[in-house]
């Protein structure tokens, strides 16, 4: 499956050949250019559903939403791996066949090319005037001069009794082969990365720390050959996070401008702390394990006092951003330690609050005037039931009852304000605002090999598409020299270069072009 100038012969159909014959025919068909071309089309076509349907590897939440909206269709699509296109057996079948076809084509060509490189340029044909490019020289030219001129132009030169043969442009095929072999290396590098790499996501609130262990991640996706011990043992504390936004007066008011998280990092247990300014496009690098800043949000700080007068909860509560342009966020506060009843709160956090009729809205993503609306509940949180729960969701708790009269839009609390719960159930105080950041940590040992292979593909491609293979011969007959030229690359323009070569052999001669 290489770009060949020569036409490949279609594999002949076997007639009454045994198993070996069929295998030979199958191999020849698989490695033919025509098959490679069809596999290339299939490869492109097979990728299309990967952009049409949400993919589990990219956004599992979106796949879940698709299942919720269209359960029957989603189930059928899932049977055909439509949510895992790039990990599906049929996609693997196509690229494995394609790469097998590539191996079958490129390896024999590499061997042939290695021989070809060592071969001397072929002897001059008898009549050079029959070649597509030719010229007769009037002046005197010795074979030694011709050799010198052609060598200076970096041709490989071979001499006979009355002729000089020169050839140039083997780098074309070299580049072609390098390109295709580099694609194979690239595929291997991607495979190695998938086996020995891992990916983890974690949310860290200002003031909190993180240690790189499997248990510390909110979501952890290891490769098949990764063990818990292979994680780089670094840790850090998030001391500060700052975001800046486009201010009022511009069409894009509220658009983020910069994110910057200050980390205090220990590369290994016992190592000294170093301060790292983590930004988008500038990950934290600890011996090849990279940590990226991929998101942020607000974590208002609450103090909950229960009916018994005890502080039952104190600390920040990370809220999910429900509107990315105003950072209006939804919070869930669960207080299982509250007595006599467990308490829970739904909150709506507004970083820059303005009243709007009966409602309040956030008008800017920065925390200019932060408030939070609170809906209190009391009862049994069901944490002892053994059912796993999300910390971001109150779910359908049948044993939780609203405390007091539910209002659609309770008056929001400003920082420092408290809401007294009805029936002496205690109070909740909004004490401050922190921010959280979402981090992704990745380790991929295939990164560097993949990068090197990619560089090789580009270099190989440039060589194979720009270099032309051409031959030049000079023959002396009765003291007169004739020059012939042949371009072995179809569609290339050799005329100008041939004229230059003839001119440097003898400035007074004329060139004939019979093409």
């Amino acid at each position: 499956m290489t770009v060949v100038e020569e036409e490949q012969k279609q594999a002949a159909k076997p007639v009454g050949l045994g198993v070996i014959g069929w295998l030979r025919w199958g191999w020849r068909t698989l490695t033919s250019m025509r098959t490679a071309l069809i596999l290339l089309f299939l490869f492109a076509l097979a990728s299309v559903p990967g952009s049409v349907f949400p993919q589990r590897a990219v956004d599992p939440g979106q796949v879940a939403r698709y299942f919720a909206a269209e359960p029957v269709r989603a189930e059928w699509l899932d049977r055909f791996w439509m949510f895992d296109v790039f990990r599906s057996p049929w996609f693997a079948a196509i690229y494995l066949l394609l790469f097998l076809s590539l191996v079958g084509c490129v390896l024999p060509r590499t061997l042939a090319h290695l021989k070809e490189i060592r071969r001397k340029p072929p002897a001059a044909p008898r009549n050079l005037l029959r070649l597509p490019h030719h010229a007769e020289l009037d002046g005197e030219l010795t074979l030694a001069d011709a050799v010198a001129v052609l060598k200076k132009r970096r041709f490989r030169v071979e001499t006979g009794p009355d002729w000089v043969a020169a050839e140039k442009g083997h780098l074309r095929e070299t580049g072609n082969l390098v390109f295709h072999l580099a694609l194979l290396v690239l595929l291997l590098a991607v495979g190695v990365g998938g086996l020995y790499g891992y990916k983890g996501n974690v949310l860290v609130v200002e003031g909190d720390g993180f240690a790189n262990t499997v248990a510390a991640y909110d979501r952890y996706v290891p490769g098949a050959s990764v063990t818990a011990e292979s994680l780089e043992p670094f840790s850090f504390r998030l001391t500060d996070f700052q975001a800046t936004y486009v201010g009022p007066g511009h069409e894009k008011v509220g658009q983020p401008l910069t994110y910057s998280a200050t980390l205090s990092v220990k590369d290994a247990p016992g190592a000294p702390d170093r301060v790292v300014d983590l930004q988008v496009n500038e990950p934290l690098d600890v011996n090849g394990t990279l940590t990226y800043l991929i998101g942020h949000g607000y974590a208002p700080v609450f103090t909950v006092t229960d009916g018994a007068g005890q502080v039952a909860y104190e600390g920040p509560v990370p809220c999910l951003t429900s509107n990315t342009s105003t950072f209006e966020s939804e919070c869930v506060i669960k207080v299982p330690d509250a007595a006599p009843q467990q308490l829970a709160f739904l909150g709506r956090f507004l970083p820059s609050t303005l009243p709007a009729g009966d409602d309040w809205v956030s008008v800017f993503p920065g925390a200019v005037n932060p408030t939070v609306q609170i809906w209190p509940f009391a009862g049994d949180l069901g944490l002892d039931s053994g059912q796993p729960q999300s910390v971001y969701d109150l779910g359908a708790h049948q044993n939780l009852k609203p405390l007091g009269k539910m209002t659609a839009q309770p008056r929001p609390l400003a920082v420092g304000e408290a809401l007294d719960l009805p029936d002496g159930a205690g109070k909740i105080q909004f004490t401050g605002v922190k921010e959280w950041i979402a981090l992704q940590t990745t380790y991929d040992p295939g990164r560097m090999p993949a990068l090197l292979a990619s560089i090789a593909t580009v270099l190989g491609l440039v060589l194979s598409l720009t270099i032309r293979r051409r031959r030049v011969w000079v023959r002396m007959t009765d003291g007169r020299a004739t020059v012939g030229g042949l371009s072995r690359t179809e569609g290339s323009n050799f005329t100008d270069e041939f004229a230059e070569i003839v001119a440097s052999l003898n400035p007074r001669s004329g060139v004939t072009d019979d093409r």
Partner: protein
Amino acid sequence: MTADSLATLSDQLILAAILLYLAAMIGYALELAFGTRPAQVRELVRSDGGTVTETQPGEPVVWARQAGRLAVGASWIGWAANVTATLTRGLAVERWPWGNMYEFVVAMILAAVTVYLFMQLRYPVRFLGAFVTVIAALGLGFAVRVLYTQAGPVVPALDSYWVAIHVSAAIAASGLFTVGGVAAALYLIRREGESRLPARADLERIAHRVIVIGFPIWTFAVISGALWADKAWGRYWNWDPKEVWAFITWVAYAAYLHARATAGWKGKAAMIVSLIAFGCLLFNLVGVNIFFGGLHSYADVP
């Protein structure tokens, strides 16, 4: 000059470029339609009573040729307006002026016109002007009417020197592929035999020449995109819709290059493949941002 007046100047220059490209298009079209008198076929009676047909090649028509030359002039002035518009936009926002769809389309049109104008300096391809300028005018019009975004800063993920590397390569390759797409479309429109357009073999050669230059640049654009993704998102390849379609486009152009070297696929079939590849490129440029979203959807489609 203040940022605001630079941005306004940029917007006005884009309108001027549209008008100049349209004027050039008319000139090119006149030359294409009337530039050569039709070839004369005469039937002569020989002295022995037989007949000979004699074909006289068409002669050039002076005024129409003049229209063609004026069209080249108008194209260069339109090009200068396009360049200045991109420069002033960049100065107004103090970053590389390809941070959103509007700016990308303007730059891509600029790249296509640049490829054409420099090509016609070296090769006899002035006829392409009629089609390149009409695409340029339509493309800029589409950018102004549908994609326009007020000059402003970009989100943090786009605030990187990789914009200069990755997006510039994508723009250059897209410009080359656009010219290749025009030549391929003309190849298919033009039938064998007499035509005002150049021979099919010439059109095929033009398409091949620009695609051969564009393909490694596109490869580099995809790879530098992967490098940037590795820096920004923590993985170099994750099958984001934009990545999927960049890959599909790459495979389709690779298929064209292979088709051209395969018996039975040379000529028409290969040209159709190259047009499919160009379709994938356009879909990746416009369609993916509008229909699919994904990580590249910050490109500001209103």
